[in-house]
């Protein structure tokens, strides 16, 4: 295929994915908006007032970057895992497999679709946060870089999950038993500096700590971890998972007999 044809094919997947999550907005865009508003009201406002400051900011301001990242992570992952598994389940993946479109374009298309939803929800949550607190960008480029890379990383994660999934239970296990605990323990609601040395060391093994703190550094200018290390960690993980997902597609794992 020519570059132009590849671009058309890529755009087709992205448009298809965006159209999908917009069509079912009560399932995709509304729930995170409601959930995060509840977090802002209960944790940020009601409980946060009693907690006082954290990292030099009032508690509401401190948790907003983490909550934005949480919604980006969950929605980037959720979009690709449900969409790609859906195409497998309905066999509509065959529409792509019989076409001359290279595996790379299929992978990039789904990642872009996942990022579109993740970033869209991130934007909605950010706008909602403005009703509760003021937000100002300390380091705009780092903020954008971290959120884009994180969104890409979890879109790829969702893709890999969907490749191996053979039933609907398989696409719920990772978000429920791995992603949610890691996110809650990833410094969204607290600074890992509050933990004992042992648990701080354990927390440093959680990749979401680097993403939340990288984003928090971009927004508030404070971080529990080295920001350069955070960016390198996210970038390396994204690259590694991307190569793995591409290899799985090339081998036809889960999609070709």
């Amino acid at each position, binding site marked *: 295929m020519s570059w132009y044809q590849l671009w058309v094919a890529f755009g087709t*997947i992205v448009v298809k994915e965006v159209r999908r999550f917009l069509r079912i907005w009560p399932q995709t865009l509304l729930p995170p908006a409601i959930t995060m508003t509840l977090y802002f009201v209960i944790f940020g406002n009601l409980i946060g007032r009693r907690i006082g400051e954290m990292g030099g900011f009032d508690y509401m301001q401190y948790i907003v970057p983490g909550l934005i990242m949480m919604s980006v992570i969950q929605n980037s992952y959720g979009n690709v895992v449900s969409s790609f598994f859906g195409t497998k389940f*309905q066999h509509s993946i065959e529409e*792509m*497999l019989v076409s*001359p479109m290279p595996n790379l374009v299929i992978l990039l298309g789904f990642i872009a679709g996942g990022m579109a939803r993740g970033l869209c929800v991130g934007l909605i949550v950010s706008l909602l946060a403005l009703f509760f607190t003021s937000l100002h960008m300390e380091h705009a480029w780092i903020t954008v870089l971290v959120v884009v890379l994180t969104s890409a990383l979890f879109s790829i994660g969702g893709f890999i999950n969907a490749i191996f999934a053979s039933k609907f239970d398989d696409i719920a296990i990772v978000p429920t038993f791995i992603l949610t605990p890691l996110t809650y323990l990833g410094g969204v609601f607290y600074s890992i500096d509050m933990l004992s040395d042992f648990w701080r060391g354990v927390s440093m093994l959680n990749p979401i700590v680097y993403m939340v703190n990288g984003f928090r550094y971009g927004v508030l200018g404070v971080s529990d971890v080295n920001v350069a290390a955070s960016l390198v960690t996210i970038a390396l993980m994204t690259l590694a998972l991307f190569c793995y997902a591409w290899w799985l597609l090339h081998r*036809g794992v889960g999609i070709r007999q």
Partner: protein
Amino acid sequence: MTALSIDNLRKTYKGGVQALRGISLEVEKGDFFALLGPNGAGKSTAIGIICSLVNKTSGQVKVAGYCLDRERAQVRRQIGLVPQEFNFNQFEKVFDILVTQAGFYGIPAWIARERAEHYLRRLGLWEKRDNAARTLSGGMKRRLMIARALVHEPEVLILDEPTAGVDIELRRSMWEFLSELNRRGKTIILTTHYLEEAESLCRGIAIIDHGVIVENTNVRALLEKLQVETLVLDLAQPLSQAPEIGEFSIHLRDPRTLEVEVPRGTPINEIFLELARHEIPVMSLRNKTNRLEELFMRLVEQNLPGEQY
């Protein structure tokens, strides 16, 4: 020119099931070709390999001269597939399904929209263009899959059981549509359980059973192999025993139905003369089974596992 060339194609699934045991066949450009076989014979596996849905174990596949191993993208561009099962997103609109499929082939949206309209109109689905695919009837869904397979204008159209579960009227209209496509030069390969369909539409034919090709010829040559046909005569009055007429083998299926085995090339006038002489009026006459069906059953029965392997 050859539209499809398969050489010693083998497929062994995980677990050791040998779906294809080295099949070879050629389909000429412009042919209307039938791939017949009982359930589990290997038809869908062969189609899956040709269309890149199944990885082959060994062997070679060429489509319009392009090699599947070396020129996979070119091969895929030449083929339009109408699978056996509905495999589109049931929640998408009919029009969007076609435009999206064209996009996967790198066809820009404005051309895709024109082609989508063209094929939806030809297949009588234009009025349904804004409906979600799940709201279509079974026959409409099948026509939608044909339109989708044509939207990138492939050289070879492959249909896996295209008329399964389709009512007679719709089946006839699909036959007409496919025949017209074929007359315009499109190579069509179909698998079907309706042997009448293969006999009336197709010129080339291959019969596959237990992963091997047991016959690969043209329909006319195959039918010439049929040595005996069985005619069924419906009688006006009941009989207690079958009459004896010359060398014909006749038996009474029930008091009002006679079955007569007629060797190929034998005139049947004598049967009616003798029946008239015995004062046995005949109300109607028909073939016991489709001619191709008789041949098919014989070829498949000859190839029963344990006899050949």
